[in-house]
């Protein structure tokens, strides 16, 4: 009996702790790993996040005839680990503090970033997003920049030429 009274006292001391949740907001602390969102302005479509994403919530697809690259984020698969945030070179993808994902249509869970792709100057095949090219252009030396305008195959050919010139 005594112990029961103790518990009663404890309960009364604690008071009511539950919230009327959907009607009262629940605040989350600093650095809470909520749902990720891609900053369309910053994203360069490099696809680093796609590579690291454990549950394949992020995926990339290249639409050749439209000449665009899409980075697709599907929150339905996301586990909020934040690896994408770690690897993103331009801090385009960030984890927000939102966590309420419930929705009536799954389409609300998709975020698609569509980026125009640069065409190769030689073969004219789209090979990377323009932004990616610009980004890389920032940190390569001047004389190599022309190579950035080529797709990988052509680039290798051309660079091979350069090498032969050098020998010659």
């Amino acid at each position, binding site marked *: 009996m005594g112990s*029961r009274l103790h518990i*009663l006292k404890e309960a009364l001391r604690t008071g009511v702790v539950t919230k009327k949740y959907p009607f009262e907001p629940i605040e989350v602390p600093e650095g809470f790993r909520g749902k990720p969102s891609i900053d369309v302005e910053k994203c360069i479509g490099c696809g680093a996040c796609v590579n690291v994403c454990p549950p394949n919530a992020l995926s990339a697809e290249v639409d050749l005839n439209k000449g665009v690259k899409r980075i697709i984020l599907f929150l339905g698969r996301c586990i909020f680990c934040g690896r994408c945030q770690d690897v993103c070179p331009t801090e385009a993808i960030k984890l927000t503090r939102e966590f309420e994902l419930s929705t009536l249509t799954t389409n609300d869970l998709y975020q698609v970033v569509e980026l125009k792709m640069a065409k190769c100057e030689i073969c004219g095949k789209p090979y990377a997003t323009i932004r990616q090219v610009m980004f890389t252009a920032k940190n390569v030396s001047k004389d190599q920049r022309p190579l950035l305008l080529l797709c990988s195959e052509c680039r290798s050919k051309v660079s091979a030429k350069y090498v032969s010139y050098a020998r010659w």
Partner: protein
Amino acid sequence: MENIVFVLANVAALLIIAPIIDGIERKIKAKLQCRKGPPILQTWYDLVKLFKRPSIVTEESSLAYIISPYIIFANMVFALALVPSFTRISLSFFGDVIVLIYLIASSSIFLAIGSISSGNVFATIGANREISLAALSKLLMALVLATFATLKRSLTLETLFPIIPPYTLSAIVSIILFAIIAYIESYKLPFDIPEAEPEIIDGILVEYSGRSLGILKYSIYLKRILLFTIIVYLILPREIPTLLTPILYPASTIALSVTYVCIETYCGRLRIDQALKFMKTLVPVLLVVLIIAYFNY
């Protein structure tokens, strides 16, 4: 004739407030568990929702499974007509204690038969627990009743109410004991063994759903309020003016239910054999009380 009208009014009032009292209990229980509880009318909302839903019948089930909730409900309502509630007027010209006991007993009998007819093994286990508890609690009730009868030399409610005026030891103790038995009868923890949720999935009610479940739950609330009423009127002195009863009765009933829920909140569930042992320990106590009453102390 006007008695009948009064009685019907009483019963109707009880039918309305029984779930509300349960709502109050839930609210208080929540508060004692550091929760915001549901609104007081929540029980009513639940009932209405259940009444709207169709109920599911198992393939194994027979007619008894379908009709027993209705019979239980009828039993309970009729039992309510036998006791005075908001006014002292009741069908007391044949309001008889034994009938009351038998109505309570038969409600649990029908509950057992109905739930076993569902063909579910958990229901069968629950029903068995139910029967065992009911049988033993009948013994206790009979003993208390015998004490009352020896005190008041009567078996009719209107002469039994209230017990107290002979301020004897036995009278007071017997009322307390009856309160305990009522507690056991009203499926409150630690005695909600027939419908132990984690052990045997709501045992006796497992197969009942929708409408029939609603009716069953409703009749459980009615049973509780019936027991509360009896306790209240065992104490409520006859001297108080008739105009005060409509206020005093619900107030005291709610007070009683609050005390019960406070006890319930801080109890775990007993095992069936432990519960039976506990009830058996009450028997000698009751016998002693009966003997004391015999020598009217």
